[in-house]
């Protein structure tokens, strides 16, 4: 189940999965020890020898302490929320520790997909300190987003330099959590007012129209005020208007953004329209060259629209 190299969900870190190296301060201490040792040899000073070996022993002991600080931690779940391109995506990482002892100065970060060199120390995004005082702690990793589309959390990097800062221990967690990055809403074009052959706010008197797209047969239990009396009178059967609180419908069409040349700008504009429509309580549908979504309203519908826009591949 869990590979030995990198820890997966809920498997606590064993000492084999923890990498340890001295930090540059550890290297500095080694230089100091060499200097003290030279002094001890030169002056044949017993206490100088003792000091050198005490500090050397301290360095060796801290290897164990730092490894022990990370050992036993496990990644026990990640929850995520979708985000818009340009704003950071929030991944809440739940870290559990198998023992009740507190751990200090543990940092969690995400390996940035650009895979920069580790010695340049900018290979990590979203570094955060994890206070591990309880068996289950949660931290929010704010992953920067630039492009729309799917975003995988990927590999997480957890490290600690406790207690002396001379040695760094780190380990990796693989997380399969992913979220969708919606396109950044932008654009200044006004909302399209393509109303379908239905009406605004109730009764419209368009003469010569017999088929009303927004009508349904009456079902017992439907609110009486939704009954469309003229149509009822005409059809001699109870007819209600479409069972939504708002009845204005607009269509968000790809073709309506032809004024913008860049396809990303067009996507952004559509996103902006969708959010405005949702805010105004309108019903809206989406029509893209390759896909479309029927009219709807509400949060789920909005999410569907945004997801479609996020995944849309304009190069098709």
């Amino acid at each position: 189940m869990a590979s030995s190299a990198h820890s997966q969900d809920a498997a606590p870190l064993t000492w084999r999965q923890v990498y340890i190296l001295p930090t540059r301060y550890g290297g500095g201490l080694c230089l100091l020890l060499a200097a003290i040792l030279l002094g001890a040899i030169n002056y044949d000073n017993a206490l100088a020898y003792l000091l050198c070996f005490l500090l050397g022993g301290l360095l060796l002991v801290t290897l164990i302490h730092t490894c022990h600080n990370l050992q036993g931690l496990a990644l026990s779940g990640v929850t995520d929320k979708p985000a818009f391109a340009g704003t950071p995506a929030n991944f809440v990482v739940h870290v559990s520790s198998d023992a009740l002892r507190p751990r200090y100065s543990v940092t969690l970060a995400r390996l940035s997909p650009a895979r920069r060199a580790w010695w340049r120390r900018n290979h990590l995004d979203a570094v955060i300190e994890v206070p591990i005082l309880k068996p289950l702690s949660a931290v929010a990793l704010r992953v920067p987003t630039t492009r729309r589309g799917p975003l995988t959390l990927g590999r997480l990097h957890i490290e600690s330099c406790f207690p002396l800062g001379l040695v760094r221990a780190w380990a990796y967690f693989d997380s399969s959590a992913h979220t969708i990055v919606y396109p950044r809403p932008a654009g200044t074009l006004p909302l399209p007012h393509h109303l379908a052959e239905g009406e605004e706010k109730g009764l419209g008197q368009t003469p010569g129209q017999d088929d009303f797209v927004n009508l349904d047969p009456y079902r017992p239990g439907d609110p009486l005020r939704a009954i469309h009396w003229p149509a009822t009178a005409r059809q001699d059967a109870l007819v209600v208007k479409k069972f939504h609180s708002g009845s204005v419908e607009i269509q968000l069409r790809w073709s309506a953004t032809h004024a913008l040349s860049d396809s990303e700008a067009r996507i952004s504009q559509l996103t902006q329209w969708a959010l405005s429509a949702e805010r105004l309580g309108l019903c809206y549908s989406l029509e893209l060259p390759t896909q479309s979504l029927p009219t709807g309203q509400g949060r789920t519908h909005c999410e569907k629209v945004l997801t479609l826009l996020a995944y849309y591949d304009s190069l098709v």
Partner: protein
Amino acid sequence: MGMEPISSGAAQTVLSRLLEAAGQVILDKHEVIKLAVTCLIAGGHLLLEDVPGVGKTTLAQTLARLSGLDFQRLQFTSDMLPADILGASIYHRDTQAFALHRGPIFTQVLLADEINRATPRAQSALLEAMEERQVTLDGATHPLPQPFFVIATQNPLEQIGTYPLPESQLDRFLMRLSLDYPGPQAERELLQGRARREMLVSMNPILDAVAFGQLQATVDRVHVADPLIDYLQALLARSRISSDIRHGLSPRAGIALLRAARTWSLLAGRGHCLPEDLQAVLPSVIGHRLTPRDTALSSTELVARLIASVPIP
């Protein structure tokens, strides 16, 4: 309710007889029958979600008959009013008074067929009565019989013109099961053999209300050890933070799980509950309580992932 519990061995004997008898009527669906019986003994309501014609009604009738309980079937329609379910006071001209007519809900096993065709108002009347185990008519409270079960059925495909139960109401059902099509052998037997209804009529009840009560009391005596509670809590905690699940399990779900698991242990003839029992009832008990984040995931898949990611302590 003050019934004497019996030994787990005796309980198992009786229950296996019940299962066997039910297996003769409903062919080839031993797991589902077992789960359905578990649901009943655990005192919870059952939701059967399936395409029409696979034997939902038959199952309900079988269970009722073999358990020796009163059975009533109620076909829900879209014009059903709460009064049709609960009952109403009807004016009798000759006595010049209102007489209370109890609705079909006053029975021990109620089959609420196609519950998703009723209006939300009718649905809520039924669900409230299920919860309270009593009905208030004209200001007077009438308790429902003991034991009382609702076996509701729902057709998952037919969404047009229906009012599917919302998630918050699904929670009231202990289990959600689906029968699915029978296997070829069973289907052959079904086509060739006796009609199920006749068969059912000719069978004798194996339990009665008293025995039923005793069995329920025995469930309460099934021992639950601390490690098992640890495992249950780990499952609940995991469901709340898993990235696949939108909302986690509530404590009510945990109580339901435990009760179902204990009943399952009893069916296996054990006096104590094991983690395997929890795992066995998990899909049916929480399948309808979890909402996946990724709508492509089926609830079976979701539950399987949950089980796989929680080690048994």
